[in-house]
């Protein structure tokens, strides 16, 4: 057996299956005409391959198919609707989708009221005081201030002696003094 025989025997499988290019096919068929050893080997392999190609497929027993069916798509067919819904949501492949949906709904429930509260508080500040009301309040404040000044003017002596300089803290005493001076000056 020379080198050529060895390399040709490697290609028998493809030669028998007819998947070789024409050049190599012709080379092998020419060689088979010449070489006795290779022809013998080729005939043996052909016999074995034919026998192997005719190997039967065994049919899978029915009991196995039934066992598979009962554990896959018929597993939840006999159970209640609630069970099936539970399975669909939590065990099937829909799980990521349902979790995502739940997260979105939670986010909406939490975040939307927050915005709502903020908006309403801003609105209430605006609506509580109109410009007329502010002017009214200003007028009232001026009136009450002048009234206080009037009282203090009337009882200046007493206020100075009893209250202002004895009992209040320093800051208040000074501020009151200032206010009295302003009002008194007018």
């Amino acid at each position: 057996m020379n080198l050529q025989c060895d390399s040709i025997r490697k290609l028998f499988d493809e030669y028998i299956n007819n998947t070789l290019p024409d050049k190599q096919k012709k080379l092998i068929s020419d060689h088979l005409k010449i070489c006795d050893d290779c022809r013998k080997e080729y005939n043996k392999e052909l016999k074995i391959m034919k026998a192997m190609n005719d190997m039967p497929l065994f049919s899978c027993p029915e009991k196995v198919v039934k066992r598979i069916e009962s554990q896959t798509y018929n597993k939840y067919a006999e159970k209640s609707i609630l069970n099936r819904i539970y399975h669909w949501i939590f065990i099937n492949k829909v799980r990521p989708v349902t979790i995502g949906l739940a997260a979105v709904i939670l986010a909406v429930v939490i975040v939307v009221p927050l915005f709502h509260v903020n908006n309403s508080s801003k609105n209430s500040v605006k609506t509580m005081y109109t410009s007329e009301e502010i002017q009214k309040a200003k007028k009232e404040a001026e009136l009450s201030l002048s009234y206080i000044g009037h009282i203090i003017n009337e009882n200046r002596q007493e206020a100075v002696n009893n209250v202002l300089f004895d009992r209040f803290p320093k800051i208040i005493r000074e501020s009151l003094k200032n206010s009295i001076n302003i009002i008194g000056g007018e």
Partner: protein
Amino acid sequence: MKKDQYKKFLHKNKDQVFSYAVYLLHCLEDAEDVTQEVFLKLWENWYNINTKKRESWVMRVTHNSCIDVIRKRKRIKETDKDMNNIDPRHITDFKNIFVNPEKQFYLTEQQKIILSSIEKLPVKQKNVLILHYFYDKKIKEISDILEIKESTLKVMLHRARKSLKTLLSEYFYEKKGGQYEFAV
């Protein structure tokens, strides 16, 4: 729907999976277990598998679980050797398995001889032979299933054929015109 597609796929491929397991394991009960396991795994991973590669995925899983069974058997044999108490199921006397009137498995004598000599080959070569010749799979498909390069597959196939031929050589006799026949 998943259910309809799965049902279709199951009834199309169950025989292929089952007989691959039978050819590899030479035991009907183990083959039944393997088929069940494979199709349950398929149901669980249905959406994770590319629809085009579903068939080769199933064959690969079948192959892997068959090899698991073979490994388990080896372990059992090793531990039970001293006890002299080997489970008769694990002795691969397939001639009794295939002659089963209930299952109606019909094999010719030639095929039985070939199967018995394939059983003597190493597991890797056995797989390649079964996939390539019994199932008519192309080398590219086999390389998808077994995750082996095509070039190494070709070499493995060549070696397997060579050793199969030497194993079968005692059964051949020469006819007159240089033709060979099986002697049974």
